[in-house]
């Protein structure tokens, strides 16, 4: 299949050559419906232009300016970038974000996979399990955080501390201690996000031909060997894609630290996005929007690398 339908790879240069060979005159372009194509695209271009591209361009310009959105902006060259890079809080935020990403992989990567594999094995009420797994995704994030705050209450009467109290443990200051605050956030974030990943894995698992399992059973493989030799290889592509999506997602974590701890205690849960927010909004008299956009652009550049990787990989897998 691949051999017959996949077009041979061509670089941009060869494309250009091919186009030049059959360049069309404006008349043939018009006759061929070119204008109506363009007009059909116009609303979309307008909407994208106004709501997506214009803000992006504006942000890039702003990152070279000093402005409080009231007085006239002045161009300051690379000052904003220098200021942001010299801020000791930036490195703290980068470290915290990487720590969050690491913990999110540790908790959030295997749990949905195990859940999906187990759910595939169950024969009855599979729908019920998928619904239960997906439920947290449906809960509005702010509601979920308020709920978890209740669980994490550091007093002996908090939900988790009460339960641990029954076996003589605790009370633990979940969100109130620099060492436990971040893992607590990740746990809540994993709970909220796992459902979506489980659905992706379940979908991927349905594409594994059952004959492979039958064949491996005939060969005498147990559950673990089946998972290792049949399930995981079949999921390889999806696993990699969810990995990259998770890296991109966790680099932009904002909601949990903002709502749970506000970046505290003592900046232990300050993430890059929260730092951007602080630059822009912490000062009631007009924030440092220049520094905020400069940092945003640096973050975007890093994430763009991952996005390119993601695009490449999804494209190469979709044709295989």
């Amino acid at each position: 299949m691949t051999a017959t339908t996949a077009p041979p790879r061509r670089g941009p240069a060869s494309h250009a050559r091919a186009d030049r060979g059959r360049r069309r005159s404006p008349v043939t372009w018009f006759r061929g419906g070119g204008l109506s194509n363009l007009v059909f695209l116009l609303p979309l271009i307008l909407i994208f232009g106004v709501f997506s591209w214009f803000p992006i361009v504006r942000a890039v310009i702003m990152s070279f300016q000093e402005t409080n959105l009231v007085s006239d902006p002045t161009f300051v060259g690379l000052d904003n970038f220098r200021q942001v890079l010299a801020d000791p809080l930036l490195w703290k935020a980068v470290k915290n974000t990487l720590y969050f990403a690491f913990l999110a992989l540790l908790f959030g990567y295997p749990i949905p996979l195990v859940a999906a594999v187990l759910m595939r094995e169950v024969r009855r009420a599979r729908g019920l399990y998928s619904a239960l797994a997906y439920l947290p995704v449906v809960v509005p994030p702010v509601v979920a955080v308020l709920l978890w705050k209740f669980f994490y209450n550091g007093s002996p009467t908090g939900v988790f501390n009460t339960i641990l109290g029954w076996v003589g443990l605790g009370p633990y200051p979940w969100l109130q201690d620099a060492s436990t605050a971040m893992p607590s956030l990740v746990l809540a974030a994993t709970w909220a996000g796992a459902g979506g990943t489980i659905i992706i894995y379940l979908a991927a698992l349905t594409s594994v031909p059952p004959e492979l399992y039958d064949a491996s059973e005939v060969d005498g493989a147990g559950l673990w060997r089946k998972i290792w030799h049949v399930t995981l290889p079949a999921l390889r592509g999806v696993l990699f894609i969810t990995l990259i999506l998770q890296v991109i997602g966790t680099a932009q974590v904002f909601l949990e630290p903002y709502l749970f701890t506000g970046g505290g205690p003592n900046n232990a849960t300050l993430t890059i996005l929260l730092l951007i927010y602080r630059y822009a909004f912490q000062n009631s008299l007009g924030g440092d929007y220049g520094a905020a956009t400069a940092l945003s652009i640096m973050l975007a550049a890093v994430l763009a690398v991952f996005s390119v990787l993601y695009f490449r990989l999804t494209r190469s897998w979709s044709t295989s």
Partner: protein
Amino acid sequence: MKSTRQAIALTLAGALAISTLAACSSGGSGSDDESSGSDGDGKVTLKVVSLLPGSEQEAIDAFNAQVEEFEAANPDIDIVPEEYEWKATTFAPQLAGGTLPDVFEIPFTDAKTLVENGQLADLDEQFRTLPYADKFNPAIIEAGTGADGHVYAIPAKNVYGVGLHYNRALFESAGLDPDQPPATWDEVREAAKKIADANPGVAGYMQMSQNNTGGWQLTVNTFARGGRTQEVAEDGKATSTLTNDGTKEALEWLKAMRWEDNSLGSNFLLDWGTMNQAFAAGQVAMYTSGSDVFTSLVQTNAVDQSTYGLAALPLEGDDAGVLTGGTLAAMPANVDESKKEAAIKWIDFFYLAKLVDEKRAVADAETLVANDQPVGTPVLPMFSEEQYLQNQEWIADFINVPLDQMTSYTDTMFDLPLVGEPSQKTQEIYALLDPVVQAVLTDENADVDALLEQANTEAQALLDQG
């Protein structure tokens, strides 16, 4: 065939594009209408600050009753109440985005810079029409006056001094006399420990630490121990003095309570709103905040009034003082004259006339009492002490707040050595101090001296930026 299809496509897409554009432009012209301030009937629509988000229904009813009364007297003005809470993190974007009410409230510390930036409307002409315009305490009117001598922000809501708020029921539970609140910081510490020991899970004392309130309350504690966090020279050049003894003492005191006494409970990330919540829920026995906070404790948190107590802030050391601040009413720079005219009538009616006019004072108190809202919460006088006492006499029959539970504060309120908030880069330096307070509360090994040293360096860098 092809051309017909193309024609249809063109018409369709063209219509779509035009409607998109039209939608954009009609949105624009709509907002133009709003800023011109009048609708079809020649009425002026004025959006005003109503109450804190999440207020009790009785408070909303009381507010609506006042709006009706105002609209009946001013048929050409349409009041649109909007819930509002001043927050450092949301104010600037709201102002820049034009989403604030026409009449909004700002703290004393912000007015000067907002005027300099040209973000506030000049209300001088309208302000001068008030019969009591020249009777304000000059220090207070100064807060909202620009370099040109014009009044931009009007002292409207409250002027407060910070007090010590306490829960009488929790005092009793620990065998303490609620009529004898602690008068020194050592007594606060002792009482906090007794209360925490008698009520596991309850904070005997707690201090705010988030959204710039950590810095705000640390400054309160510094002043109360005779320290100052900033010195401004004659030429306007400010020096950060965060490493002063008062601030150090305040942090060491807090640290001892947390790690030696374990009397601060289990939540160390509170701000103004969540602190009020925790106090009203009986999770915090003592905290420091503006003397006027009782009103919002009733309106937003349904506090049990019989358990509420207000004491004077303990003052120790030479030059100890009570931090004072307040709220001004202002308008965005782009409002037109008709809105300003309407606004001054509203500010007069809702905020000020009730302080100086017997008829208005009684009418206002009547409405509030009818809706079970607090009347008589102690604030500092905006005009003069005599005028304040006169006002208290007018509304004496309506006062429904438990003033006898606030005597420790009210007995001394006119003699308090008041100190204004640090004047330069106030909110930014408060923000720098949040993590310092949090570190002391959550890290047993926090080094107070090193933390303050670093915060001081960063604060000085901010001040040097000018």
